[in-house]
């Protein structure tokens, strides 16, 4: 564990307020010198198709464990002082927020790196699956090699 770091993982249908989540992390300790954040949102097109809606399925129980492990590892590798990961599930339309990652450290380098690491690992290791409703029918999103390569560089 990243010693005293406060690490929060949340999975559910509810939307999030990124500003509020960032403020909560920033207020944890005055040792924090940098806070990085990432928001993943639903795009209105994918592989040239218009996407009208998307459903996001997960493996309840394993999802929380997998995310917890990823955040723990990030906290250890970059001495994080705090981190929050929120991943939504359920039904989405273009523009909806899907995922939030907030990382806090003494310096910006650690916060940036940990934030990117968490996203890269989340995309290849946490049990979520997307199904898109498009102009040409419903399709399960296929895993991308580029995501695997992004995770491998860590």
């Amino acid at each position, binding site marked *: 564990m990243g010693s005293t770091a406060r690490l929060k993982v949340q999975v559910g249908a509810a939307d999030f307020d990124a500003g509020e989540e960032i403020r909560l992390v920033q207020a944890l300790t005055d040792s924090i010198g940098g806070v990085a954040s990432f928001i993943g949102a639903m795009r209105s097109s994918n592989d040239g198709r218009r996407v009208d809606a998307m459903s996001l399925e*997960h493996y309840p129980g394993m999802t929380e464990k997998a995310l917890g492990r990823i955040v723990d590892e990030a906290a250890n590798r970059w001495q994080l002082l705090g981190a929050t990961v929120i991943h939504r599930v359920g039904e989405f339309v273009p523009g909806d927020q899907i995922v939030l990652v907030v990382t806090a450290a003494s310096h910006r380098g650690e916060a940036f790196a940990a934030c990117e690491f968490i996203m890269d690992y*989340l995309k290849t*290791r*946490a*049990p979520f699956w997307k199904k898109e409703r498009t102009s040409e029918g419903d399709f399960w999103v296929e*895993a991308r090699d580029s995501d695997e390569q992004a995770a491998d560089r860590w």
Partner: protein
Amino acid sequence: MIKVLFFAKLREALGQSELQWPLAAEASVEDVRAALVAEYPQWQEALCASNVLTALNQEVVNAKARVKPGDELAFYPPVTGG
């Protein structure tokens, strides 16, 4: 008995999300998969696809992992969250 779970595209292909499977003694993940296909031959293509992943008691495992009565075994396609 063990609890077997299927997710996403695989769940749709098999037409089932969950089943109880009689497992009297310890066996490998591969043994369980073979026994499922023997019982449901129509599952062969989807369940034995090379990209199907497995988790035992919610931890990612390979085909050699040992499954014991009472365990939870999940089969699923590559993940696409984020």
